[in-house]
């Protein structure tokens, strides 16, 4: 294999490299990332919001010292916004100039339909970078938000990593970029696409890992408070809430408690800061009903 992944040639290396960049990954994720790199397959990360899916791509780009190219999906996303668009204003200006110079009679189509007039969107950016021999990390974020039609297009793209622009020609990646696809599961992604990928379900962390995440991400965090917060998160996630809090909320909460100068998690500090952790009124009410003491572990 090419030397580009020289520093992450084993599962251990992946885990270490991630840890160096403050990402506490479990073994299962390490294996999935390692396989995706070695086999040159896209990594499909599925999981609830706020468990650190997007972060994986950012960290991996840093680890590989590659450019991170991000395509944020949304309803109505189409090829014009995902792949490329012509720079119309420039094209029109060019037409005017050609006319003004009186060169209209021998102007060529290529004069205004060349690469200079193309605005590359994330997918083309990734392919162009890969065509020049780089290996960028392409993050296709929240694919579940895009329409199914787009998914079909993506499936085609992921199979050969080349694009044909009629006026310019075909641009092909020398080597496929590292692709990371994330989904919050607001709908099921088609099986054909998932089967092309290395699949990994990003779970909520267990207690020990969550403590590690808090103390890694917030360096001057008191270990005892971190343990209390992690325990409270485990409790909250067991309550059948409408939206159980993710790791993002854990970190927000830890930061909030630190700002407020809390040394211990108790009923009143839970009550004061619940809005940082729970984002649905029903969930907040449910916790208040059960008693913040139970969450704080001071019952």
């Amino acid at each position, binding site marked *: 294999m090419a030397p580009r992944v020289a520093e992450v040639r084993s*599962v251990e290396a992946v885990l270490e490299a991630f840890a160096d960049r403050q990402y506490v990954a479990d073994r299962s994720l390490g*294996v999935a990332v390692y396989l995706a790199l070695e086999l040159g397959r896209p990594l499909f990360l599925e999981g609830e919001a706020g468990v650190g899916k997007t972060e994986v791509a950012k960290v991996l780009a840093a680890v590989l010292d590659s450019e991170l190219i991000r395509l944020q999906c949304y309803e109505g996303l189409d090829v014009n916004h995902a792949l490329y668009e012509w720079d*119309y204003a420039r094209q029109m200006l060019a037409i005017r100039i050609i006319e003004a110079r009186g060169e209209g009679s021998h102007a060529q189509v290529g004069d205004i339909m060349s690469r200079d007039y193309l605005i590359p969107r994330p997918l083309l950016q990734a392919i162009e970078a890969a065509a020049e021999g780089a290996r960028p990390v392409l993050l296709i974020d929240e694919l579940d938000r895009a329409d199914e039609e787009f998914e079909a297009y993506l499936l085609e793209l992921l199979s050969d990593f080349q694009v044909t622009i009629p006026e310019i020609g075909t641009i092909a990646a020398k080597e496929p970029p590292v692709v990371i696809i994330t989904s919050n599961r607001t709908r099921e992604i088609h099986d054909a696409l998932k089967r092309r990928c290395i699949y990994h379900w990003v779970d909520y962390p267990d207690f020990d890992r969550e403590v590690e995440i808090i103390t890694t991400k917030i360096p001057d965090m008191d270990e005892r408070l971190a343990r209390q917060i992690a325990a409270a998160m485990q409790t909250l996630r067991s309550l059948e809430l409408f939206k159980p809090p993710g790791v993002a909320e854990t970190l927000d909460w830890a930061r909030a408690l630190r700002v407020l100068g809390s040394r211990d998690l108790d009923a009143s500090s839970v009550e004061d800061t619940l809005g940082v952790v729970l984002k649905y009124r029903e969930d907040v009410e449910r916790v208040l009903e059960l008693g913040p003491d139970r969450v704080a572990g001071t019952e």
Partner: protein
Amino acid sequence: MTRPEALVSFVRALRDAGIPVGPTVAGELMAAAELVGLADAHDVYHAFRALTVTSVEQVPTFNEVFVRFFGADDSHLVTVTSPAPPRTWSIHRGREEGAEGEGDEEAEDDAFVGASARERLATRDFATLTPEEVAEVRALIARMVWHPAFTWSRRRRPSRTGDRPDLRRTLRGSVGPEGDLLRVATSERRIRRRPLIFIADVSGSMERYAEMLLYFAHAARGRLGRLEAFVFSTRLTRITRPLQRRDPSAAIAEVAETVTDWSGGTQIGEAIRTFNVEWSRRVGRGSPIALIVSDGWDRGEPALLAAEMARLRRSVHRVVWLNPLAGRPGYAPETRGMRAALPYVDDFLPAANLTDLATLIELLESVPARRIA
């Protein structure tokens, strides 16, 4: 442990267990085993799982097959805690008449149902139909022709009379022999069909009505946008997949097999809660219409039902409640459950006979694209 033959039969076992793996997967597993090394069983487990599983629900099945093949040491099998595994129902064999008579019933579906039958059956309550009439009604339902109201997609398509200039086409159109900007091409939003979420009560009193409405949903599924279907009496079961079978009798028979308590006590609030917590965010895209079929006899807490209905209404475009009793003379929604749910229902309709279904169709054909609060 990773001899090719072993891997091939491992792959076959996965397939037999219902995990649809591709034809090339055995080779990939081989490559992966070499990459992660055989020293660490954990890594082999994680690698194989990442290569074969395509959804978190398949993990328990995968674990089972993996343990069977590569040793019983399951200490390293990572248990996946979220989301809660979908509730499984043991297989119920009480309704086998439907499955057995399948062939005959198909024939009946195709039986000619004349205009006189249509008239005779138009206002007959579904619960009082004879078996022959059930077949006739089903045939009539299958032939109803209607077109659900559409809504706007965010995707766009070329159009002569669109509302937004389409610069790509404009420019391309101008690169002709003349090179002038002749006409500004425009685009408009595509139309799309609104998804429908069907949630039917199959407790004792509702059984026949729910069944007829399932036939209705089945017949309509090609015409609608995505159709998601659930049934409940004490618990909620998703029946979207069985309902995708083409033959209506086979589809409904499969639904009957997936569901055990066709006649248990009814927990509407609990069922809607399950929908809200476990399914709403997974199947609720595209501002769907929620169609609830129930007589409102709820054994649960009215407060729970009210809260869950409120939440449901916030996450869908429109809530339609079909109550078979609603068409009866003198009916008033007085059960505790019905009273609790009603404030969050946009349309409350009867659903006891074919005429009622026609009213429902009228509604679905005219649902406005914007919600009128």
